[in-house]
């Protein structure tokens, strides 16, 4: 992508007057096409102006952008609320051909005062591109002022977001819910969270929080504890006597939707659908809610009774959940269509542990387990909703002397940390790369080390070793790191002749999960990948069969909670559009959301003009004894005053991005 003009991040590129093939590279990633019939020719936003094509009108873009700033202004500080309105009125005069040079000068003065003094990003970062427009397109401004130029009639879609929000797959209005907590309006905060997701507790406890990696506060001191504040908002409702907003919603639509799978994605989609007035039934294979969040996330990270209470909210809203229904057997597409279900959301996740691909794996040797299965066993037998006594070794869960867990993702972490809690004394990880390449959350790795897990890096399993028909150990091969592979991580290479046996009486394979999509035999039109995931439109989550939608791990492959919830939110919207007979597709605002995400709403190198030294609040954790000796929740949650102070650290980095969109396909 080439650029005609840019002031992005204060670096001016001006290719005006040059032939198109002499244009330089565009400093940001912008799509040429806005949608099938429109092209994106220019962008104005928090970081400056970028023009990629000749068909644009800078004055009109700046005028519309200013109007968007004023509209987005929350009204909670003087300069932004009034200042952007004064700017808007000046633009009004200019566009009407009544502007004066003094007006243009005043725009510059206003911008300085607004951006230096405003409360949040709208005022702080918003006005700068307007000044740049005045500076570099002065002739156009004068032409408009003198009435020589008239409105061009291009369109200007925009989106208000924030770096954190932009990083969140659910598009949650993070600054707003943080502000709710800061103001002591915890119920309002939770209501904001629930606009994006019904899983405040689950996400607040176990999300991998991409938002915190996009937090501008990190440029000042430390990123905000966004994830745990979400948990606080939910805990506050849970622990206090408040009127919980759970009255059954009115069904304003006659259509019924079947959601397959009561995991985070399925439950979330059910929520978005019921908010739109549809009848929703969730069909779940297991007798419990939560899917992978129930079976795969141990009690010490999300206590099961907490999850039960969280899901109660959905039930209160009117979501019907049917348990022990194996889709494809007990219910099928045909049978449900026959019962009047007008759309399907497939959210069956991935619950089959991948095989390690080692010798002897097919021999059904006792003592070899899949990670997901063993976690489910532990959940079912040990941690239902009671906290086990230290040293408890229930019969139903295999108790080895030495356990080897192969893999280094979060599932592997959950396995080793669970076995530490079960009292196993020799708990080991076997991983073919090094600590640096581990896909697990660094926080989890740190905790597991603290709890006594031993790590064996640069080691790949090759063979299951038995003695007298019983598992005796795992033969492994030493590895060394070669050049980076397609995942960007350095590829491990086997060291020949380094095979040796590690003794163990239990081996858990935690290297990933596969999806069970056997039920799709009935609908062969739905496309699948070679990894046994479902292919959908990546914007709408609709499959090739119009009434079938899918999301979560069954689409992305085993990934994470929040992505699954994000899929559900989009799919919920698409199903609504489909059932109401509307065009299924993203709105202009959502397209802008994607444009902004492509540009990158967060810049880790930005110098943020804010005084530093306001420390992030520490999360209180349970006692050492509870930590390794029981399945009690490790993180205790912020007390209210800490939550409110932590929330006050938020800088409300709202930003506005606007595109200039012209008719015609991209060239």
């Amino acid at each position, binding site marked *: 992508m080439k650029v005609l003009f840019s002031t992005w991040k204060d670096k001016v590129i001006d290719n005006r007057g040059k032939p198109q093939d002499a244009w330089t590279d565009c400093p940001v990633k912008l799509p040429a096409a806005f949608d099938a019939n429109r092209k994106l020719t220019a962008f104005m936003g928090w970081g400056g102006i970028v023009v990629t094509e000749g068909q644009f009108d800078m004055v009109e873009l700046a005028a519309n952008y200013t109007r968007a700033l004023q509209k987005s202004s929350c009204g909670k500080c003087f300069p932004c609320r009034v200042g*952007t*309105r004064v700017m808007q009125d000046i633009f009004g005069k200019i566009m009407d051909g009544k502007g004066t040079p003094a007006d243009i000068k005043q725009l510059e003065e206003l911008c300085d005062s607004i*951006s230096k*003094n405003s*409360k949040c990003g709208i005022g702080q970062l918003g006005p700068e591109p307007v000044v740049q427009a005045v500076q570099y397109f002065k002739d156009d401004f004068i032409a408009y002022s003198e009435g020589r130029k008239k409105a061009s009639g291009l369109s200007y879609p925009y989106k208000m977001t924030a770096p954190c929000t932009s990083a969140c797959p659910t598009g949650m209005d993070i600054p707003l819910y943080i502000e709710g907590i800061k103001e002591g309006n915890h119920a309002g905060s939770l209501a904001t969270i629930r606009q994006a997701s019904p899983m405040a507790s689950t996400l607040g406890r176990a999300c991998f929080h991409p938002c915190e990696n996009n937090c501008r506060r990190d440029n000042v001191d430390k990123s905000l504890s966004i994830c745990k504040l979400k948990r606080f908002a939910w805990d506050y409702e849970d622990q206090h006597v408040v009127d919980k907003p759970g009255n059954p919603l009115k069904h304003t639509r006659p259509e019924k939707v079947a959601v397959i799978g009561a995991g985070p994605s399925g439950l979330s989609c059910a929520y978005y659908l019921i908010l739109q007035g549809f009848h929703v039934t969730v069909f779940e294979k297991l007798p419990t809610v939560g899917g992978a969040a129930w079976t795969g996330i141990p009690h010490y990270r999300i206590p099961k009774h907490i999850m039960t209470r969280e899901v109660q909210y959905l039930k209160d809203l009117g979501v019907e959940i049917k348990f022990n229904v194996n889709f494809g057997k007990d219910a099928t597409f045909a049978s449900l269509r026959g019962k009047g279900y007008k759309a399907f959301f497939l959210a069956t996740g991935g619950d089959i542990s991948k095989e390690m691909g080692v010798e002897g794996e097919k021999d059904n040797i006792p003592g070899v387990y899949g990670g997901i299965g063993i976690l489910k066993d532990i959940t079912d037998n040990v941690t239902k909703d009671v906290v086990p006594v230290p040293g408890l070794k229930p019969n139903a869960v295999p108790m080895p002397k030495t356990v080897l867990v192969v893999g280094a993702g979060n599932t592997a972490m959950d396995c080793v940390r669970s076995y530490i809690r079960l009292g196993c004394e020799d708990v080991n990880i076997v991983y073919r790369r090094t600590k640096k390449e581990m896909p697990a959350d660094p926080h989890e790795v740190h905790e597991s080390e603290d709890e006594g897990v031993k790590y064996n890096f640069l080691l790949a399993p090759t063979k299951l070793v038995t003695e007298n028909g019983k598992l005796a150990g795992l033969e492994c091969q030493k590895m060394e790191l070669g050049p980076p592979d397609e995942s960007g991580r350095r590829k491990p290479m086997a060291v020949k002749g380094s095979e040796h046996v590690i003794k163990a009486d239990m081996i858990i394979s935690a290297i990933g999960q596969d999806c069970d999509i056997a039920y799709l035999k009935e609908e062969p039109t739905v496309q699948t990948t070679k990894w046994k995931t479902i292919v959908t439109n990546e914007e709408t989550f609709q499959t090739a069969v119009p009434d079938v939608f899918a999301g979560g791990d069954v689409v992305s492959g085993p990934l994470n909670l929040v992505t699954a919830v994000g899929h559900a939110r989009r799919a919920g919207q698409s199903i609504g559009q489909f059932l109401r007979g509307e065009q299924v597709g993203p709105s202009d605002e959502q397209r802008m959301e994607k444009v902004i995400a492509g540009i990158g709403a967060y810049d880790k190198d930005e110098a943020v003009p804010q005084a530093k030294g306001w420390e992030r609040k520490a999360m209180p954790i349970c006692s050492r004894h509870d930590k390794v000796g029981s399945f009690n929740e490790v993180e205790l949650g912020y*007390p209210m005053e800490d939550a409110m102070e932590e929330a006050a650290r938020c800088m409300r980095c709202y930003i506005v991005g606007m595109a200039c969109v012209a008719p015609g396909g991209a060239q």
Partner: protein
Amino acid sequence: MSQDTATEQKATVSLSINGRAVEVPRGATLLKAARMNGFKIPTLCYLDKIHSIGSCRVCSVEVEGVASPVMSCVTPVSDGMVVTTDNERIKEYRRNMIQFILVNHPLDCPVCERSGECQLQNLTYELGITKHPWETEGHKKVPVVDWGLIRYDRNLCIMCERCIDICREVQGLAALKIDGTGYYSKVNTVTGEKLDCDFCGQCWSVCPVGAISSGITFSARSWEMEKTETICYHCGVGCSFHVNTKQGKIVRITSRDTVGANRGNLCSRGRFGFEFVQSQDRLTAPLIRKGHGFETTDWDTALGYIADKLKQLAGQHGAVAGIGSERATNEDNYAFQKFFREVLGSGNIDNLANMAAPATGAGIFEAISDIPATCSFDELKQGNLFVFIGLDGSNENPVVSNHLREAIVGHGAEAALLYSKEAFFFPAPKMNLMYGYATMHHTVLALLGRVAKDVKANGSMGSDIPQSFAQTLELAAQNAETMLDAALNAQLGELAGLIRKKKDPVFIVGQEAQRHPQAAAIVQNIANLARATGGRLMVLREYCNTLGVNDMGVTPNVLPGYAKETRPELKSHKNVCDQLHSHDAKALIIADEDVLRRSADFLKFRDAMDKAEFTVVIDHFYTPTAMAADVILPSCTAAEKDGTFTNIEGRIQRVRRAVAPVGQSRPLWQIMADLAKKMGTDFGYKNAVNVSMEIATKVPLYRDMLKGGLAPYKELLADASRMKWVDPVPMKETPGAMTVLPEHSLFVMGLYTDYCPSLRTLVGKHFADFHVEGKPYVDISPKDAELLGVGEEDTLLFKTPRKEWKGRARINAQVASGSIRIPDEMDQFPKVTMVAGGKEIPCYNSRGLESGEGKC
């Protein structure tokens, strides 16, 4: 990970402000740090008692290394900061912020209520703003919105958010919100409808401009008003406020932020309930009965007439009985009891607080032995868990709730409510327990039992529980538990756990506990709870000087300062009412008390007054009690006299004369002194300070009263380590009988509010559907409704000896079974018959206590 691990930090932070090295507490904002060290930073939206808002951007400063101005009110200090609070650049930005506001702020100063005390006006002046560089187009004026006593003028509003934040944070209501975005954003009620709130007026008091105003005060300019700092006369909190007068007429009440026992907070009664002082209905001259009516006379005649009557009885000890007043000053009450004891030789005096709630009246120290029944508000705020017992926190003594909220928001304290109805409190309480009125004592006892069990299992929290006490308790608590349902028992267990977990509980005792037929036992056991848990106890008192009237010895057998009466001839063996009934007493003097209205046992009182040969009533109004008198003397209200009130903390506070006495009314202390003089004894009082001096000399408890501060109650307490034990008395039950629990309106409570027309307009707001077609609500639990066959909106007939009235049933799950709730406004009678579905159901009013008849 390391980012979430706490590290030890120094308690202070060193930084440089304007070149001076300073050290301030960690966590302080730059604004506080600067002000602490004498540097001035202008502010507009900032309020000390709530979280920093940060909307006005006027308090900007420069911090080295930060490119933009830094808002000092929202930025905490950190080590090594180099701060400049003032230079030309900052000044210009500050001017800009005010100029932004002036873009659309109408210069209506000549007709604006805030003019002269407007912070925008002051800042504009202070910053020397003479230019008006920016403007917007098409700005149209919008009409002022009338929210009842409060009005909102959006044209004047600068959107500083003070009103919204104080409402949520201090008042706990969140009745206001910001509506819309950008330039057209405005303050609105949360519902978008008329304001539905406590009408505390906090929003009005903090509005820096004239956007929020009050309709009843729009009559004087700020510079025309004189301000007198005094103490509120409505309830026992003892809020400090300023009576604002213009040419001798009260025009409004204001308070100063963070000042006084109330820290500047006031409730609707304090803020808007001043009209009674200069009401048309005030008594202006002495009246002497002539046949069925009264004849106006002068003081000399009236006092002479009374003195003649009393002289005839002065020889007989106890022949004259008296009722003192919870709303009169300490000086008034002291003079009153002195007149009785020294001039009339009678110890037959009492007050309604003591008669209605003897457990918390004069006998409080007797009953509670070693725990002060009161703690200071500062101590209160240190609590981690507030256990409300028999308290409707949002309606009784509302300013106490403001303090609790401060602790809840400030250091994460929690609240647990125990009430005979599902009570409302904000922020959301941790627990909300509902007991049946008849089992209130059992509930307290069961909780005490749970706490004792917990102490046994997990170790002591407060004082050790004596072995013998523990044994008795175990059995009693077991019995008590059988009276309660399983859910409540489980909740009480949970509450006991919460008390241990949170530590430092404060037990706050409301009117329902104090007026309960088993009040003595209830309060006693709450005291035991406090003792066993190492907690504090705060007994909330209803009137402005409920504590003082008892401290001043307007009680039988107890002298000022709780000295015991030793003179046998002044001892009293019966209560005032019984004395009159048995003709042991022949005359009655009632001072500043509407006995016939306030006492639920008024029938007996009325008979007593009939039996008395001679009755004098001293009051501000022509009350039902005054109507039954032989002589009526007009007394001053607290706004017209000097003196002191003792609030529920035990803080002795100066009451100051803000306006001249209405008509010929005189302060009570003066009336008593005048009467004594007529009878030949000169008290030697020329002013209220003379009385105060005498109290300070003669009553050790009040020796420091002229210095202010708390009365040293702790000195009085026996240091008995014993816990007094009171067995639960099962209430005498009349099968099928119900308890009538009258509900207060927040706005109308006590005599004064009857004469405040503005407050009365709010009653309908509070009881949203108080009267529908002339029928007040009768709240009944679903269980009772089913039992009695009462349906929603059914008409219920109530018969009292005085009259009959109809109510309409509301089936309300928030009401405990065994009781019905009606508005306090309705005819209160000890015994009422309710007719429902053709059946007559006997009902006993929870207030009908004294005669014993009402005990159910």
